[in-house]
């Protein structure tokens, strides 16, 4: 694992860039634990102050230091993302493995439903949900809900992998030698399935974080908890752009861009490194 990172750091410029971005994000998260300001208190500093040495990202119309507020935002958003990732991984694995191994009509029915979820426009449905659960909504609940909707794409990927594994000779050998089906899955197949799960986690993270931003901006999540989306929501509420407090919008947007770009490039580089076909392509010339 470390050799992968070392090779990538040394030879892949894109990876180095991503690494820097993510390091910045991690720093922000760690800083949230030593924040001098409590994110739940408003009007603790001068309002609408532009960025300066004292307030790195300036202050908001609610009298909060934007930089320190955002450290909490990043932390919370990521925690939510991890919750979604965890739940949807579990569901995706269960669905993918079951459909792949069982085959037959169960597989067909499951995949039909699966594809429905892939195609359905989730935002209107999530808006409906968000609207109804407004009062109870918090980041944790949002994470769970997103987890319940974020599995179908990956379930299908896992299922294809299982299908191809079933046909391979080493599986037949195991079956003929009398190994119990469950152990075949765990011992022989999981090493092939897990890399896919790993690779799809990042996509899932990107998606769920994006959804969080979108839903919060619409006002459909817990607006007192700092998150990247709620930052933007509050900025809009106070008409930041119109009032000329542009840093209130720019800062969360900037942080969001760093986070998303960093995550995406990081895992794109790793995937390219691991996939032998891209290696072949990179070697040509």
């Amino acid at each position, binding site marked *: 694992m470390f050799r992968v990172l070392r090779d990538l750091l040394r030879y892949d410029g894109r990876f180095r860039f991503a690494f820097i971005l993510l390091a910045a994000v991690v720093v922000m998260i760690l800083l949230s634990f030593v924040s001098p300001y409590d994110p739940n208190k408003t009007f603790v500093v001068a309002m609408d102050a532009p960025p300066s040495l004292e307030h790195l990202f300036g202050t908001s119309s609610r009298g909060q230091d934007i930089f320190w507020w955002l450290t909490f935002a990043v932390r919370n958003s990521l925690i939510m993302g991890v919750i979604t990732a965890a739940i949807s991984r579990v569901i995706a694995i269960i669905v993918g493995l079951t459909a792949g191994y069982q085959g037959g009509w169960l597989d067909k029915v499951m995949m039909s439903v699966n594809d429905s979820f892939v195609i359905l426009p989730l935002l209107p*449905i999530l808006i409906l949900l968000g609207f109804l*659960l407004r009062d109870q909504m918090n980041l944790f609940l949002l994470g769970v809900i997103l987890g319940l909707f974020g599995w179908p794409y990956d379930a299908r990927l896992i299922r294809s992998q299982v299908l191809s594994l079933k046909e391979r000779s080493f599986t037949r050998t195991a079956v003929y030698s009398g190994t119990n089906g469950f152990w075949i899955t765990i011992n022989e197949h999981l090493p092939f399935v897990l890399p896919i799960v790993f690779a799809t986690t990042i996509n899932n993270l990107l998606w769920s974080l*994006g959804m969080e931003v979108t839903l919060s901006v*619409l*006002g459909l999540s817990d607006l007192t908890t700092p998150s990247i989306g709620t930052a933007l929501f509050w900025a809009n509420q106070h008409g930041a752009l119109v009032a000329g407090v542009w840093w209130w919008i720019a800062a969360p947007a900037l942080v969001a861009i760093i986070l*998303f*770009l960093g995550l*995406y490039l990081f895992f794109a580089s790793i995937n390219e490194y691991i996939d032998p076909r891209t290696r072949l392509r990179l070697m040509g010339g």
Partner: protein
Amino acid sequence: MRKFILRYLIPRILQTLTIIFVGITVTFIIPRLSPTDPVEAQISMMMARGETLDPQSIASMRAALTDLYGLSGGPVQQYFAFWGRLLRGDLGPSLANFPTPVSEMIGQAMPYTLSLLITAVIISWIFGNLFGALSSYYPKNRVLSVIEVLGQAVRPIPYYIVALVLLVVFAFFIPIFPFSGAYPIGTKPNWSLEFIWTFLQHAALPAATLVLVGFGGWFIGMKSLTSNIISEDYVVYAETAGLKENKILRNYIMRNALLPQLTGLAMSLGTVFSGALIMEVVFGFPGLGSLTMVAVYRNDYSMIMGIAIYSIIGVAAAVFLIDLIYPLFDPRVRYQ
């Protein structure tokens, strides 16, 4: 022909119906699972607005609302009643704009969303795929590499943030595009050239956002797809036979790569649609997105419900359309 209908058409129709069925059922179940009782919420909101109602009126109001929301009777009864109303095209009245029916308001907003969506999707799909394929076939080209970097940079960013950036840039720094609404306040929509021109100006930014984000995605997907196809036997054969480069690109590589990309397009419609909704919110474009936003603010439950249902059916229908087009491109499906 019969085989084609049996093996391809019927499963596709079934799949579309399943999508609609699953989607509508989910939309049906969600409100009934939530702890909020929309009827009570509505009544308390009305009371908060300062309307005084005596207990009798409240009771009849409650009965009317329950019926309106389709909450009368047991769950199974409700479900069938739900479908019944749907099939009749009745989505109920908008609560914020009582008694305008939801379907009417959706009908008004629809053309805006559709025009935005269709243009953006087609442009980003065509150009994303084109440049992705070129970038894969000419890997040393500088211009294409730059485009690739830009595409990769924009792709993971959520629509909302890209919209925000564009908004800030074009509203504050380079004010050439109007950044709100679809036409100046006070103008009545009509088919005059003048109107169409202002409309295009207003639609430019939301469309641009959609195109930018979509472009990156198609570019990268197409690039990796093309690299795989380049090493396929029939391409190597064509090269060995000495076929000219653009002939190979056009007829051998692209024609084959477009097939999975077409399927991908169908799969992505739901996401793009969601993106379009957000675009409208940011840029104040009077389509379904803005309608949703307003509905959320004004607690217009039936509107939100209606939009959800409408989106599901709309996207499923669009996917089915693509399913119908696909055999035109893939002879393997046409002739079994």
